[in-house]
């Protein structure tokens, strides 16, 4: 599973070469704060001595923006299926609207969140890779993603009438999260409750239903046992 690179030098996102540039290019304050604090936390968690890195180090970190990630999913007959999750951030996709896909993010091992089996559908906002010098003097790369988080309703169980799982916006404190792309386990598809919101998921929409009929694999996974 490796993110797909952009054509260098042809796209505004290709001009972002370090972490400071990413923060400067992020218009939304909430997103900027989430990227800064989330990345800092994640590096601390991954480091051996569990300490925060300095702001100078963080800002000077080499960075590369990606617009897609290929995820291997196991199909119904145990065949491997490649799924492409796209995330163009604020840029348009194919000359149209921006495209920030929904992905399944693994939260816990084992079966939890009812029918969702320990996964939650989150909406990607940014995909990036950072390169940093660790304590041993070697370069380490982290593939990270910023996503709008959603939480399940009714403990992730199917709604008795509609037979779909409902998800809604997470509380403001955890509404945006930075996580390792290794936690992405596939593409998700949700249908907004309020249709006036745009395709990018912005707007007043607060609730979505998880579309379990989008393919046979999802249909077999999102199911009350």
């Amino acid at each position, binding site marked *: 599973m490796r993110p797909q690179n952009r054509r260098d030098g042809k796209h505004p996102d290709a001009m972002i070469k370090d972490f400071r540039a990413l923060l400067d290019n992020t218009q939304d304050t909430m997103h900027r704060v989430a990227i800064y604090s989330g990345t800092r936390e994640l590096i601390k968690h991954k480091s051996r001595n569990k300490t925060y890195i300095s702001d100078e180090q963080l800002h000077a970190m080499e960075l590369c923006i990606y617009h897609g990630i290929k995820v291997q999913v196991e199909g119904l007959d145990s065949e491997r299926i490649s799924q492409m*999750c796209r995330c163009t951030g604020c840029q348009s996709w194919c000359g149209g609207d921006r495209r920030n896909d929904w992905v399944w993010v693994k939260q816990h091992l084992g079966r939890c969140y009812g029918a969702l089996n320990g996964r939650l559908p989150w909406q990607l906002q940014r995909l990036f890779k950072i390169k940093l010098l660790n304590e041993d003097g070697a370069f380490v790369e982290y593939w990270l993603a910023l996503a709008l988080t959603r939480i399940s309703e009714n403990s992730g169980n199917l709604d008795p009438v509609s037979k779909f799982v409902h998800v809604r916006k997470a509380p403001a404190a955890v509404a945006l999260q930075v996580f390792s792309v290794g936690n992405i386990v596939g593409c*998700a598809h949700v249908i907004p409750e309020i249709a006036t*919101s745009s*395709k990018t998921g912005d707007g007043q929409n607060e609730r979505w239903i998880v579309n379990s009929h*989008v393919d046979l694999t999802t249909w077999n996974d999102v199911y009350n046992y």
Partner: protein
Amino acid sequence: MLDHLQKWIFHFMKTHERLDKYNAIWLSLPAYHDLTPKNKSYEEVSQWNGKEMKEMSQYLLAVVTQSLQGGSPAQHPIFNRAIECTWAFLEFYMYARYKSHDDATLSYMEVAVHRFHTFKDVFLLGQAGKKAKAKANALRTELVKKQKVDEVTNAESWTLSKKRHEMNPWRDYISHQIDVSKELDANFNFPKIHLMSDWVKQIRRYGALQQYSAERHEQAHKTNLKDGWNASNYNINYLPQVVTFQRRILCFEIRELNLQALAQHQENSAAACNVLPSSADLAAPLGSQSYAKT
């Protein structure tokens, strides 16, 4: 069958004044892997091709469910029946797409068909054909005439508010009678709906339904006919050329498979390798290879 379901749902949404919401949700569908966002609402699409139909089955139920959210308490049972019917049909459709089956999946298919038949009456109005609609229109004309006669008879005695008060029940009565007339004449007696009940038996006898997919034959039309036509001299005797071209392609494919099978056996591998082109031959530019005359 998806085509029929699509029409029934459209009619149902129109009858229950949910078409705007249905179209709006259609437009706000997010992208998914190979599913691109829609540029046109449901109503704006004039013709559906096979791929679009297939894609539609991926989100139809979720869109219907979201469109029928809310509504008055009287509407809830009808809406739930519509969702149940769509759910049962698409469940059957999903099972039918399995590449292999066991007793459990076949029994689920049977249950889904049974549930579909239980709830399908909710879409009966959408199934009304031309004859039923014509009959309903004739009835409407007849009832409107009666309404007018009633209006003229009492024109002098009725005030404007009284007239409005008397006409409203007439209007409800006419629409109710038309619905009843359409329902009486509409039915689900067409071959495709009957075939659904036989599919489980078919699977038990002949295997999964994937092998009956028309896609293969459509693809074969391209490779078997179009490629042959393109390789012909477009003359009046093109048919034998198309057949010969196809036969040669098949011969090569069979030959290749035979050689591959031979190469798998150790004793024949040397002989097979002599016949198969080597990697050096393949890498060499065209024209530099020498072929032995047979």
